[in-house]
């Protein structure tokens, strides 16, 4: 086999996922699309927080830049989605470069505060620079993407679009984290000094992580804008940035699969638990405190590890059965 069995399994899962919308209603699909967009964001954050080991509390700001660039290009200049998305990604990545450069001077808590500051400045600028961003009115009537003439205007159609981008981003995240680059990043995140002493130029990897994360945020921003078709600065709040950080911490800082668990899990939980309404934050804080105090490697990590051992046991069991059958015949 050229690729491991896990790759084949994953391909089968992805193919099956293509048919998912046939079995569910619009609302559920809508939640899944939302989760998919969030997943693109949290995978990017995973690279910065999990691997490079920095606290990033300004992701919503980058997400906003992606959304607004894509939306304004489409609404003001009629730029089609398939062009406005890459442009948005590049512009957002550029802002990532700027923030990345600050890591030359700051890290740890200080960097965290720089990202907070950035996120909030973005939100406030979007809110107040009315001539360009339409301020508190938000941007309306953002056009749906079109695919060979067909408009992608329902949750189920958007699901497929979103699935495509999620798979691509997932592939990029996987390749980056399972490479020598990923190993170097994790080394740097683990011990800055040791990393330097083997010749790693820490700055390079911190900037790379932030730029890639920002590009992904730009993609997610564009996807979001053309789905919801109305964006407003309040969406891109510090609270959202914290939400994304929590998803990475609760999921896993080591394995990208853990982040999938936490993102899907918490998005669904918070959506369907709108009933508890006021207690949302307490539930949410509860997960956070639970993870941080008792399960620091991440709840998602624990789930993935459990799934992994379940898989191993299944394989072993299957081999035993096959062996027994052989002996019987």
């Amino acid at each position, binding site marked *: 086999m050229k690729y491991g069995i896990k790759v084949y399994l994953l391909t089968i899962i992805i193919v099956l996922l293509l048919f998912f919308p046939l079995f569910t209603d619009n609302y559920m699909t809508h939640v899944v699309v939302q989760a998919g967009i969030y997943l693109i964001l949290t995978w990017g954050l995973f690279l910065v927080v999990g691997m490079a080991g920095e606290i990033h509390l300004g992701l919503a700001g980058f997400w906003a830049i992606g959304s607004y660039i894509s939306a304004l290009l489409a609404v003001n200049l009629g730029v089609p989605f398939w062009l406005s998305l890459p442009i948005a990604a590049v512009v957002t990545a550029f802002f990532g470069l700027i923030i990345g450069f600050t890591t030359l001077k700051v890290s740890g808590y200080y960097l965290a505060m*720089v990202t907070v500051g950035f996120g*909030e400045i973005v939100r*406030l600028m979007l809110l107040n620079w009315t001539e360009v961003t339409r301020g508190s009115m938000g941007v309306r009537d953002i056009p749906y993407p079109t695919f060979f003439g067909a408009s992608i205007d329902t949750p189920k159609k958007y699901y497929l679009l979103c699935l495509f981008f999620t798979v691509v981003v997932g592939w990029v995240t996987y390749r980056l984290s399972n490479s020598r680059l990923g190993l170097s990043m994790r080394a740097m995140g683990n011990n800055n000094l040791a990393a330097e002493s083997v010749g790693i130029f820490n700055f390079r990897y911190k900037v790379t992580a932030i730029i890639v994360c920002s590009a992904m945020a730009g993609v997610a921003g564009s996807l979001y804008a053309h789905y919801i078709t109305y964006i407003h600065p309040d969406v891109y709040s510090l609270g959202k940035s914290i939400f994304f950080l929590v998803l990475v911490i609760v999921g896993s800082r080591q394995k990208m699969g853990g982040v999938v668990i936490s993102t899907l899990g918490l998005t669904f939980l918070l959506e369907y638990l709108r009933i508890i309404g*006021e207690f949302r934050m*307490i539930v949410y804080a509860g997960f956070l405190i639970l993870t941080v*105090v008792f399960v620091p490697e991440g709840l998602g990590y624990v789930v993935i590890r459990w799934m992994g051992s379940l898989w191993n046991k299944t394989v072993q069991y299957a081999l035993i059965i096959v062996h027994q059958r052989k002996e019987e015949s």
Partner: protein
Amino acid sequence: MKLVFQYILIGIAIGSVYGLIAFGFTMIYQALQHFNFAQGHLVMFGGFIGLTAVSATSGFISGVLQVFLVFLLTGAVFALICVGPHFLVHRPILTRSEKKDEGMALLLGTLGVGFILEDLAIIIWSSEPQFFPRIMGKGLIDIAGIGLPVVYVWIFIASIGLVVVINYFMKFTKLGFAMRAFSQDKDTAALMGVNLMQTLYAIFALTYVVGGIAGVLLAPSFYVFFGTGFIWGIKGFTAAIFGGLGSIPGAFIGGIMLGVLESMGAGLISAAYRDVIALVLLIVILIFKPTGIMGKKIIQKV
């Protein structure tokens, strides 16, 4: 010109409260080299507790006595509120045997505390912004020909008063001494008979009390609203960095400087960009002079 002077005076008053918030950050940093990310939320919550304290006391007293009682009640409540987070979050994280990622864990744990405070505020009071009654003096006072609302003078006096009280407490009481010893060198402090666990609680409790009272002081000028937690935190943090994390007087000076700059910026440029000023200041300081005005340089020993 007169207007500028008024901005400066208001800035000093508000800034003195920022200094109190900064004190909270600096105190925890000195003791543990980490930050309490719920500090700003304590300020927010303080506003609400203050509201309740005011309505509870409005029936039978008024004036200076009422103000004093409101502060006392708020302080007492916050000293008690500290218990929950301390035993659920601070202690377990700080007494873990593996000291890895302590900082990140504490950051997120206290963030969780902040969220819970937000939600409690919504549940107990309301998600609507509330106005804080003017119990600290009405009308204007004439300072060199400028009309300054009296409340700002009282706010400033209250802040300074609290600073004096804290200073006295730290220098002349047994517990204060223990807290200073703890911050300087935990191990030596323990050898000298300081009960580390109790002192740790006292340190947090003090920052909770100060945060709460700061909330009462800021409430009259800004409305009481659950969403303001982070903004106070950011401003307090900025002030703390401004003044240099190693020094407590620096925290207050940083606070006042931030207050003045913010006030002038908001008055002269635009009120809407008030918070942006604090944020830009924060980023600029972090990048160019992270040790602040009065801070000390830390040399890593390898």
